[in-house]
């Protein structure tokens, strides 16, 4: 039996977190080990728990970017998947520059999230939103950061 992927779940919408926890139960490979609602929670959680992946949904996009950057400095072994509300080009590029491994639009289905997490865990980029992957191919710089 392989080790389960340890996930930290931070999102400013508690109801959304419920949905994520429920959705991730569909995969036996994943386990949500800790939760939080703010950027400060994300920093605390990431520094205390040995996470494989942090799912990061912070209300203000620039705060998500800054948090991602800080956590990548602090815990380079933890990979970050940022949840974004809209497919904003600048945001996606900034996210990748911050060291995050991917962005996923808020309108994902459970199966898409599981796929994205597993892809990232295998050191690949999430294919998640079509809009994001199109953007990535136009910004090979973003790939080179990893």
């Amino acid at each position, binding site marked *: 039996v392989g080790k389960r992927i340890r996930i930290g779940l931070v999102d*400013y*919408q*508690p*109801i*959304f*977190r*419920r*949905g*994520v926890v*429920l*959705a991730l139960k569909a995969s036996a490979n994943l386990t949500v080990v800790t939760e939080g*609602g703010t950027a400060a929670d994300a920093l605390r959680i990431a520094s205390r728990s040995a996470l494989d992946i942090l799912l990061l949904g912070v*209300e203000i996009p620039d705060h998500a970017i800054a948090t991602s950057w800080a956590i990548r400095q602090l815990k380079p072994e933890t990979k970050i998947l940022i949840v974004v*509300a*809209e497919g904003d080009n600048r945001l996606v590029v900034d996210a990748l520059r911050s060291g995050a491994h991917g962005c996923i639009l*808020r*309108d*994902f*289905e*459970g199966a898409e*999230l599981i796929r994205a997490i597993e892809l990232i865990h295998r050191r690949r980029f999430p294919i998640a939103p079509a809009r994001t992957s199109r953007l990535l191919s136009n910004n090979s710089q973003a790939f080179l950061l990893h």
Partner: protein
Amino acid sequence: VAKRIRICLVDDHPIFREGVAQALRDSSDFNVVAEGVTADALGMLGDAVADILLLEIGMSGNGIEVARAIRQAHPGVKVVVLSASDDHEHVIGALRVGAQGYILKNVGRSDLVHALKSIHRGEYYITPALASRLLSRLVTHARGGTFSANSERRGRADLTCREREVLSYLSEGLSNREIAVKLGISIKTIKQHTMLLFSKMGVRNRIEAIVAVRKSDHSQANGALRA
């Protein structure tokens, strides 16, 4: 046994819908009778009988028109906006078209349950932080005299730049298509702007909007002459 409150759940984010559905399942007071995306909202109510429709209006607020359409087609269904946007224009827009609540999506389970129960009893509910911000705004504007409930006296102060642009072309008699070409954006977007514009101005169509503009320009000109 009291009857369960029948909820119709409309949100473009499947995970959020799952979260709400699960949060409400935990309580025996609710029954989620239908769920789906905003585009299907009207059709869903055609098929299911609901007491409350929970409706996400999107960050641009374009679901407000969906709320209006639902209130018109199904006056017996209470519409409650559940939104990530704390833009006061969206709150006022939603209440104007007949929404009975405006709840921010960062709400927790127990607050959501509490809000839905009080709305079902006939009360209004607005996320408290939002309500107090709105009230203080209302008080400030009431002092300045630009935030009157009387639509005829309302200024154009709370319109966005884009809405003002659209309004000025509109009052020159341009069609949606012509305005779209002028501004280099799609007709769909123009339609969204005009719908929000009308709801903010308290008018029903472009003719009424033009009349309102003429009236206010006229009174401003008179005021300037007197000054």
